[in-house]
């Protein structure tokens, strides 16, 4: 997959148990422009291998909308990794 040499600066948010696993609620990451959400998640897996077991139960969002893991990211995007929701 040819990636542009440009980088995308993306804001990342963690909630619920994921926030506890990663140890932070918010982060900013630079990655190749157009990289998918999946790649961003993998980035955190390097330092937190235990994240892998949450992957199947997570939904991702981009700019406050649920987004497929293949969604390409660009500068200014806000991505969140959302555990199963339990409001109400």
């Amino acid at each position, binding site marked *: 997959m040819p990636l542009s040499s440009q980088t995308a600066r993306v804001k990342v948010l963690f909630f*619920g148990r994921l926030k506890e696993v990663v140890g932070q609620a918010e982060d900013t990451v630079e990655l190749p422009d157009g990289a998918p959400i999946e790649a961003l998640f993998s980035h955190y897996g390097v330092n937190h291998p235990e994240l892998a077991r949450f992957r199947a139960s997570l939904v991702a*969002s981009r700019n406050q909308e649920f987004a497929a893991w293949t969604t390409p990211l660009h500068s200014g995007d806000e991505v*969140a990794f959302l555990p199963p*929701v*339990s*409001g*109400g």
Partner: protein
Amino acid sequence: MSMTKSIHADLLLLVRDPIDQDALIQHVRADEDGAVVTFDGCVRNHSHGRRTLYLDYEAYESMALAKIREISVQLREKFPIHLVAIAHRLGRLEIGETSVFIAVSSAHRPAAFEACRFAIDTLKRTVPIWKKEYFEDGAVWADGEMPPAPVETRAAKPAS
């Protein structure tokens, strides 16, 4: 289209203080309505056979409000209702306190009943809010529901 309906002005809130239920009810009731149906979601003192001490709610606030707004739009598309008020509380909640309150008004009661049920069921599946349950011997994040995942799309960008 009725000429008498008030301008669409739903009240949708995330709050940290106790929910003012009466304000929500008053917000949705109008002279053209014959029914107001409410849902009061409150903190239960037990979960999976264990005694709950209290709950702590957190939200992805900007997205949660957007998703609650989507629910209010869906309600109006699906049911002949008048007005909607939805408030969800965040932070620490004690046993018996209201975590979510929904009020729906309509000219005739079936629409308000159905819309209120649809609203809470949809909220619990799609709004990014999480609760942590505190017990005497520890705390756990409540089992949640996975929001409907979007279909994986192929990258639409041409190669050059």
